[in-house]
């Protein structure tokens, strides 16, 4: 499968697509109406290239049908939910059948195998467990290849480093910025990752990073770092680079990836940057056809030096919308705005400042308060600030610092407001 010639892979993908489209058109109202509105019938899909006739799906579709409106299986076939934060305070829910968990785990197992992770490895999973897909995803994938999992999740960095030493951890899975933070904390503890641990690989993702950051990580630890990609709509983190590290492999039987021009929707040539559009070929509970992920990258269909023939996408360069990734969590400015505007003491101006402090993302939300909300007592004001912080925490799932400002203090804009100041350097 992994080394199948491209023509055969595409024939297989066409068969998967045809079956998927037939099923959805016949048995699902949402997809039926979408295809009918776009003037396309399953009979029009006669080769893989015909996929471009199918209409796009958007994150908004997932929100509009929250929670389970896009599920195509009976509720009792769903074995797990994950939830990602969404705009307007509305999250997006992803459901998984047993089969969905299996294809997710299988994809990760192939990915981990491609970078030499196996039965002798001990993987520390420092992605968040819970509603976020990172922790459980990496966990299942690592178990599938027979590795020993240390399911630490996020936080308690010093304890994480102690465990890494005590349990002879060989592979770390976390966000790149958290690893950089760990390296610094380890140094303060007098621990040199290169010489005082047996860590040799790191699987890093859930936020954009750069070759410069990879070099920094590798130079300071001797650990080989690999990029991992996936979003909750696809299942979770799924795809990694192989040992060659020349693009992220997308197993053809799992997902069909297109790169399109964000403006025109037309396909981009191999190597050209554009917006990633995905069709999940084995997804059951909540299928995705031509879903616009809004991540910007490029694709190549050339076989990789490792021998695998699956298409490869590049590093993610950025977003085609205004989504922010703060400590691995997706945050839309509109979501912050929605939360703030439901707090009566908050005025209508705010600003989001993003910095990297000790390699960790730090978000400061400056808000103008209404004159009526002002009190002469510091205690009342700090209570108001804590209240705003806890509301934001509740809806965004990340801790942010709130700064109270007087009306008129924040800059006003003519035309498009620039409310996000991102000063992070990757």
């Amino acid at each position, binding site marked *: 499968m992994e080394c199948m010639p491209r023509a055969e892979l595409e024939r297989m993908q066409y068969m998967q697509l045809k079956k998927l489209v037939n099923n959805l058109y016949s048995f699902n109202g949402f997809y039926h109406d979408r295809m009918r509105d776009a003037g396309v019938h399953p009979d029009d899909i006669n080769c893989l290239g015909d996929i471009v006739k199918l209409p796009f799906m958007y994150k908004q579709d997932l929100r509009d049908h929250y929670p389970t409106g896009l599920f195509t299986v009976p509720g009792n076939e769903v074995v797990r939910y994950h939830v990602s934060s969404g705009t307007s305070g509305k999250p997006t829910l992803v459901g998984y059948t047993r089969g969905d968990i299996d294809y997710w785990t299988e994809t990760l197992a192939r990915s981990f195998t491609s970078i030499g992770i196996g039965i002798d490895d001990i993987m520390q999973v420092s992605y968040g467990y819970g509603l976020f897909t990172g922790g459980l995803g990496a966990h299942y994938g690592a178990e599938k290849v027979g590795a020993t999992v240390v399911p630490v999740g996020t936080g308690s960095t010093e304890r994480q480093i102690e465990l890494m030493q005590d349990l002879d951890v060989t592979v770390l899975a976390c966000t790149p910025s958290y690893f950089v933070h760990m390296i610094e904390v380890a140094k303060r503890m007098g621990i040199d990752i290169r010489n005082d641990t047996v860590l040799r690989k790191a699987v890093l993702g859930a936020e954009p990073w750069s070759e410069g950051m990879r070099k920094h990580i590798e130079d300071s630890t001797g650990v080989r770092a690999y990029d991992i990609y996936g979003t909750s709509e696809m299942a979770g983190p799924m795809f990694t680079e192989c040992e060659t590290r020349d693009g992220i492999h997308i197993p053809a039987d799992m997902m069909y990836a297109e790169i399109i021009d964000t403006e025109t929707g037309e396909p981009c040539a191999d190597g050209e940057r554009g917006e990633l559009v995905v069709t999940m070929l084995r997804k059951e509970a909540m299928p995705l056809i031509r879903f616009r992920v809004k991540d910007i990258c490029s694709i190549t269909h050339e076989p990789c030096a490792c021998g695998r023939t699956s298409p490869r996408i590049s590093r993610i360069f950025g977003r085609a919308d205004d989504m922010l990734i703060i400590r691995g969590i997706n945050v839309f400015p509109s979501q912050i705005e929605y939360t703030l505007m439901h707090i009566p003491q908050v005025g209508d101006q705010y600003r989001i400042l993003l910095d990297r402090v000790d390699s960790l993302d730090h978000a400061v939300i400056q808000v103008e308060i209404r*004159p009526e909300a*002002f009190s*002469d007592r*510091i205690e009342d*004001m700090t209570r108001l600030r804590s209240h705003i912080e806890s509301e934001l925490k509740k809806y965004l799932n990340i801790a942010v610092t709130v*700064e109270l400002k*007087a009306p*008129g203090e924040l800059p006003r804009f003519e035309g498009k407001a620039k409310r996000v100041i991102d000063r992070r350097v990757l």
Partner: protein
Amino acid sequence: MMADDEILTQLSIFVNNEPGRLAAVAGILKECGVNMKACNLAESNEFGILRAIVDDPDDAYERIKSKGLIVRKTDIVGISIDNVPGSLFEAADVLGKAGINIDYGYAYASKDREGLFIRVDDPMKAAEVLKSAGIDIIRRSEI
């Protein structure tokens, strides 16, 4: 004397905690012709609160507000403190025994008297308690 003469009006002004902000606020007070008799500056990380006892607070309030500052009137009580050891203890002890919590306070001094302005939840009750314990309070007409 009417009771409301015993309750003083403090103006509380929101000040962002950034270099030059207090100067900007003070500049506006000057423009408004506001004369401060006593003041206090409280601060947290990113904002401060300027609390001031001024001449003709109602008029000053309107003028400051019209300049776009966040300003608020707060009722406070002025306690006359004799210039001898134990005076503050005496006043604080009386309030404490009456179950009155002082949110904050700051000192006041003029040519002929010293005192403490205090912010409490129930200023009327505080004034009554102090008076019945024989402690002088500073009246609006005396500032």
